[in-house]
């Protein structure tokens, strides 16, 4: 039996009196492209941070790549890649220096990291900018570099937290093409958070989150069929009683 890529049971998190995530039950299969759809403040980022051991759960348990997030943080972190909502690149270092820095933090030997960095830079169209400080890169290129760094250590599960926030439509499209290519090439499990329905549409399954609660879960087709509507936008409305876009406060 292969363990699920992600298995959360009653997972929750409070910040003081604020209940960011109530009790989430979630199973993401190996190789799945899974979407967490919801407005800002729905608990998407909190969920990702809990699964990535950035936060410690207030209740419940979760296993990622077979490891318990509360007790086996190092093993979890070894198995995952995480692309944060805001870039975490060092703006003063060059693209290549950023990737080398990551390679060392993930203990990749130089002989392994070197060719992999070359391949990723080529794949993400950053080859000509490798010696430029990240500061000088466009938003789309920074995002590409963030993602290249996130998969440098060949994780089993990749978390993408609102990866297209702040990108223009063309940069978005090329980002989605890259992610599709990656999944096809490596069978990587991807957990994506987004508040754009069109980004959740190509997901294998989507979990609709609202106010820290799971409102619905299924394939986009199942969700639409069950709610008797034609779009994920309407699915969100049917389950939460309010539209997705209106709750999007930035």
């Amino acid at each position, binding site marked *: 039996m292969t363990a699920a890529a992600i298995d959360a049971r009653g997972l929750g998190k409070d910040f003081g009196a*604020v209940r*960011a995530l109530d009790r989430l039950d979630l199973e993401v299969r190996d190789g799945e492209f899974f979407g967490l759809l919801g407005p*800002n*403040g729905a608990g998407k980022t909190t969920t990702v941070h809990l699964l990535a051991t*950035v*936060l410690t759960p207030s209740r419940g348990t979760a296993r990622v790549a077979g490891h318990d997030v509360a007790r086996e943080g190092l093993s979890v972190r070894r198995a995952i890649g995480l692309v944060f909502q805001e870039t975490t690149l060092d703006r003063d270092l060059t693209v290549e220096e950023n990737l080398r*820095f990551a390679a*060392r*933090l993930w203990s*990749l030997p130089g002989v392994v990291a070197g060719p992999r960095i070359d391949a990723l830079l080529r794949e993400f169209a950053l080859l000509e900018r490798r010696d430029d400080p990240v500061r000088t890169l466009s938003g789309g290129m920074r995002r590409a570099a963030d993602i290249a760094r996130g998969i440098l250590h060949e994780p089993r599960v990749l978390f993408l937290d609102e990866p297209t926030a702040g990108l223009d439509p063309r940069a978005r499209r090329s980002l989605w093409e890259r992610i599709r290519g990656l999944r096809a090439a490596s069978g990587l499990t991807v957990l994506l958070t987004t508040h754009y329905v069109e980004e959740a549409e190509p997901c294998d399954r989507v979990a609709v989150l609202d106010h820290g609660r799971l409102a619905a879960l299924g394939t986009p087709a199942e969700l639409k069929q069950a709610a008797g509507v034609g779009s994920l936008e309407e699915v969100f409305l049917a389950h939460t009683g309010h539209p997705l876009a209106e709750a999007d406060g930035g």
Partner: protein
Amino acid sequence: MRAVYGIVAREFARFLRQRGRVLASIGRPFVWLAFAGAGFAAVFAGRNEIDYRVYMAPGLLGMVVMFGSLLAALSTVTDRDAGVLRMMLVAPIRRGTVALGKTLGATLLGTAQTLVVAGLLLPLVHLRPTPAAALLGLAAIVLSGLAIGALGLVLAASIRSIENFAGVMNFVVFPMLFLSGALYPLRHLGPALRAVAYANPLAYGVDLLKHALLGAWAGAGYGGELPVPLDCAALALFAIVGLAVAAPLLGREGGVARTAFGERR
């Protein structure tokens, strides 16, 4: 260990790119030597025991290692604001490894700057340490860098933003400098201030540097005042306690997860 090397290498890459920081760290002691040194030398002139500029040399080296290590450690605040710290915290390494890497980076940066300054400053004041003295001086610089780097990391992990930096300068850097024996011998201080001085890692570092450089004036009361092993032990203790305190502070949720919080606002 590759991770520690990575963190240290990044510190050096960043430092060398900040030309202003390089020039400031190397120029600062000479500004003190020229202006503070000239004034105090005139006051001390009648005593004829030691040229004040010679007396200042170990203190100035202590000052370079203090600024070098402290500023490098405080860059952790910028790392947190820029998100780089989060990225280090999702790497498969322990919080302690991040703390150790930052402290070692700060130590080595402080040491490198101090060695460059020593190469220029010591000939200028005609101090030519023997190999043994130079080795003791190097130990003093490295140990001071470790102690102050670890302390800087505790500060960086506790302060919220770089805006609190002025407070750090006023209430940490200046008292640390003045109560270190860098500018005057501590034995003249009253018991209360002396007690404060002995809670200051730089005091042990400067004392050790005086053992290394001012041995010839020890008889006149300008050499090291404390036993060498005590200086070393105190610095090592500061480093160990600092690291132990900083590691959990760095990984603390508040430092990392503020946007998770902000998402709800």
